[in-house]
């Protein structure tokens, strides 16, 4: 190794460690605070306690918000996967003018500020007379999550050999059976990856959801912010810590099922 290479490697390591510290510190602080006994955010916590986790059980509004969020996230993910897969197949299999434009359009919610998206959707829903909270939230979250499905499935389909479907058909599968028996198993990693990203994006969304919730139906991030405004104590930290735990569990499941390397590839 030459001196320049050593310096380079050293520099890369410094940047990597700094980035990790920068990204992880807020999470570590949140988890530490949630296990502290202090009623305000003090570091280090004076003593360890489970009181904020116990308080979660009695906190009004938390359970319904959690249920709403999980429901919306699950349904939005499902709808996005089906629509996204169909769109990705069409985009990967056919050439038509404006194809790149359609890809850009379907992935654009990733790049638009949430507030812009939220206002636009709100205006749109008003215009067509849609006032039901649950339906509005679901449609809005499909818009938020579909880029994850389209992007991941589109790139996975780019690597898929469609002759496999022909082969399945010559062996006695109808076109639909061929898709179920050959395309789906081969794209399973892409489906799992996009499902997890879509689910988390939906669970985490605040900026768009804020336009569609009301006093009775709230998603988890919005309910948490309400708590933080009304009563800023580490209960919020406890909820956050549980969400972090959920993400960690999902990542571990992913790693076991298909390997993290393949997730970052697609």
């Amino acid at each position, binding site marked *: 190794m030459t001196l320049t290479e050593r310096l380079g490697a050293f520099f890369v390591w410094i940047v990597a460690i700094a980035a990790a510290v920068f990204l992880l510190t807020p999470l570590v602080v949140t988890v530490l605070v949630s296990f502290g006994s202090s009623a305000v955010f003090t570091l280090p916590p004076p003593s360890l306690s489970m009181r904020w986790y116990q308080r979660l059980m009695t906190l009004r509004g938390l359970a319904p918000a959690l249920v709403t969020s999980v429901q919306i996230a699950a349904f939005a993910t499902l709808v996005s996967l089906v629509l996204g897969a169909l769109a990705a197949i069409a985009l990967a299999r056919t050439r038509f003018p404006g194809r790149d434009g359609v890809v850009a359009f379907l992935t654009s919610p990733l790049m638009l500020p949430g507030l812009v998206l939220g206002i636009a959707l709100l205006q749109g829903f008003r215009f067509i007379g849609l006032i039901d909270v649950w339906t509005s939230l679901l449609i809005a979250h499909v818009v938020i999550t579909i880029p994850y499905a389209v992007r991941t499935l589109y790139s996975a389909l780019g690597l898929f050999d469609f002759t496999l479907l*022909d*082969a399945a*058909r*010559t*062996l*006695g599968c109808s076109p639909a*059976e061929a898709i179920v*028996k050959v395309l789906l198993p*081969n794209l399973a990693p892409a489906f799992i990856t996009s499902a997890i990203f879509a689910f988390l994006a939906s669970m985490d969304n605040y900026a768009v959801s804020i336009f569609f919730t009301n006093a009775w139906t709230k998603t988890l991030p919005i309910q948490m912010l309400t708590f933080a405004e009304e009563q800023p104590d580490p209960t919020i930290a406890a909820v956050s810590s549980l969400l972090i735990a959920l993400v960690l569990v999902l990542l571990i499941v992913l790693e076991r099922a298909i390997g993290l390397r393949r997730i970052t590839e697609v």
Partner: protein
Amino acid sequence: MSADALLLDVRGASKAFGSTTVLAGVDLGVHRGEFVSLLGPSGCGKTTLLRIVAGLLGADGGTVRLDGADITGVPTHKRGVGVVFQSYALFPHLSVADNVAFGLRAQRRPADGIKATVARFLDLVHLGALADRPVRGLSGGQQQRVAVARALAVAPKLLLLDEPFSALDRKLRETMQIDLRHILREVGITTVLVTHDQEEALVMSDRIAVMSKGAIEQLDTPEGIYTRPRTPFALGFVGHSIRIAGKAGQTTDGVLTVDTALGPLRAKGSYLPGSPVLLAVRPERVVVGAPPPDVPSNAVTAALTDIVFQGSKVHLHFAAADVTLLVETNRIPPGLSPGATASLSWGLADTMLFPGETA
């Protein structure tokens, strides 16, 4: 030949992509148990014809009959036509045995029968030992055999092979061709092979359909195509040849005299005097030296330009008046070296005559 002996009967198959005609009304009849090759350069429509027979592509016109039944509108999965694809198209998420079992399961055969059938076909292609292996790690030759076993396991009426050897290296190719021929004979299945490789077609086929520009130029036995090509394209695509362009002269007793740059030559046939014709002869039919006196022959004088030694045979390249003459012998003629002039002759019976291109 009676029409009911045909297992596959394609009539007037046509297909165009946009304004490009890929198949211009092709007829193809394949007899039960026969091995027929569709041979032609890329873009001649051979793969399109194969996909139409498999039902993977809809024809614009024409009918496809299989075993007496009209299958023109029948979807692929109900046709009973097996295909070995160029890329083999093995299912990467399944093991070798599960690949072979795939079609049997798709057709909902009883489970205990599936196991026995899979074992039988894996043994047939000598892959019994690899049954539980994933297909990803297999060599090209092994993958091809899995693809063959998978296609045969569902007992199709007809097997289609789409350039199945193109992914294999040359040495392996020859042994695989002969092995595959044995396997298919053992099963007794009617087969159509698509290939651009004339040697492959010659090695494997009972009959060869030489295709060009969306049409079958000639459908004949390998020997028939080689010794009696019906068109200049068939002549040029299968084997080497010497070609001499000329103008038709007089016909006497069914023998035409042709004026060429190498002097007057003769061939059996008849053309209007003055029309352009093409004379051809296979390189191994030409002898160096004077023609035997009692056999009607053609003779020309040409200069030797190259000697190419190829082991079992020798190629002698001659030139005369802008015509290249390739002669194939089994040994280098003594006393002949590049630059020397020699007399070349070949029998009148070996002289092929085609209509020439109007210049």
